[in-house]
């Protein structure tokens, strides 16, 4: 944590690139593979996560003076679970076809390390507006990662984007299979590490 407070825009940017949940921090990986076999699903889950992350950050930030530090973990869990239930019901009602495919993963948002981590590390110590910006940035970063992964997987695996066919001919079936998800994430992660090392002199997120 830097000592100098960051501006709101810097907070959003930090969530999108600097600490991108999937490619840099390498947490909340489960959905990055599970729902990215099509861009539609990837986007739906990305938006759901963005909503939950922002709302949780806002709520925790507003309540931070009333939450006793010793019982903060169950309380954060309850706050997260509340918002997940809301988005779960909303999607079940208004986005029925998508919900049928990714419903389980929407419910799983409750166990996302990234949401919990931001509530604990950031929202618990900051005012409302920075907390919202941080949540929004993290959410957008997650959404971007989902879009990038699902872009490659749907294009290569089915020759389609958003369900419209783009390439004719035989697609690489492996990319939409479970195995392809692991390969796509691995290769993309390596690629972003390479960019970081080559052009920005970073050490790469070898992490974990």
């Amino acid at each position, binding site marked *: 944590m830097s000592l100098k407070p960051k501006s709101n825009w810097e907070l959003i940017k930090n969530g999108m690139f600097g600490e991108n949940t999937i490619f840099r921090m*390498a*947490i*909340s*990986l*489960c*959905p990055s*593979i*599970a729902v990215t076999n099509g861009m539609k699903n990837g986007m739906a889950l990305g938006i759901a996560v963005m909503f939950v992350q922002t709302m949780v950050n806002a709520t925790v930030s507003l309540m931070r003076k009333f939450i006793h530090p010793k019982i903060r*973990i*169950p309380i954060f*869990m*309850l706050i997260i*679970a*509340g918002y*997940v*239930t809301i988005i*779960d*019901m909303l999607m079940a009602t208004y986005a029925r076809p998508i919900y049928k495919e990714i419903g*389980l993963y929407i*419910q*799983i948002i*409750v*166990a996302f*390390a990234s949401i*919990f981590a931001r509530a604990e590390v950031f929202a618990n110590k900051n005012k409302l507006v920075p907390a919202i910006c941080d949540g929004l940035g993290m959410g957008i970063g997650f959404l971007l990662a989902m879009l990038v992964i699902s872009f490659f997987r749907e294009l290569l695996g089915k020759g389609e984007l958003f369900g419209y066919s783009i390439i004719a001919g035989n697609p690489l079936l*492996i990319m939409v*299979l*479970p*195995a*392809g*998800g*692991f*390969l796509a*994430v*691995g*290769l993309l*992660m*390596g*690629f972003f*590490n*390479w960019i970081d*090392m080559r052009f920005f002199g970073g050490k*790469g*997120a*070898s*992490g*974990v």
Partner: protein
Amino acid sequence: MGIDWVKLFELVVSSALINNFVFTMFLGLCIFFGVSKKMETAVGMSITFLMVMVVSAALSWIVYQLIMVPLDLGFLKIIVFIGIVAAFVQSADIIMKKVSPVLYYKLGVYLALITTNCIIIAVPLHNAGEHYTFLESIAFAIGSGLGFGLALIIMASIREKLEVADVPAPFRGLPISFILAGLIALAFTGFSGLITL
């Protein structure tokens, strides 16, 4: 009421191999990549995981079928299940520390990690969604736990060898592990169709 052992056995096998949580449903990846660096930690994690999985599945089944279904409170299941798992893990942590410090020293670290694992919450949700009986829920939980342990141990044994391999710099660490997992997943697709439920 007779117990359908064949069905239970099929549930265990199918949830461990065919619908392996890690390789076909991609749950629990954070822990899967986090603790698969060393064989010893992988084994410790698998054992702890299996125990927590079975007990939390049983507890959630009791609460869900006996309290929530009669009262028509199904919509609260996410909140209730995460509460059950968190409370159970916390109390197991405290009890283990008092009763068996040796065991706690060995497995305590993993217990804390387990609450944030998606599989542990996915299993009760799946059980509730499929309306499994009590024994079926347990069988499903055992199978999932075994499957997770299997995945973890395979991965750990490969990653130990990987330490000495010459991997291109940008791929060191996580990216290469992902590609490895992809190859293992490809092998696991071979199990599909082994049993049709």
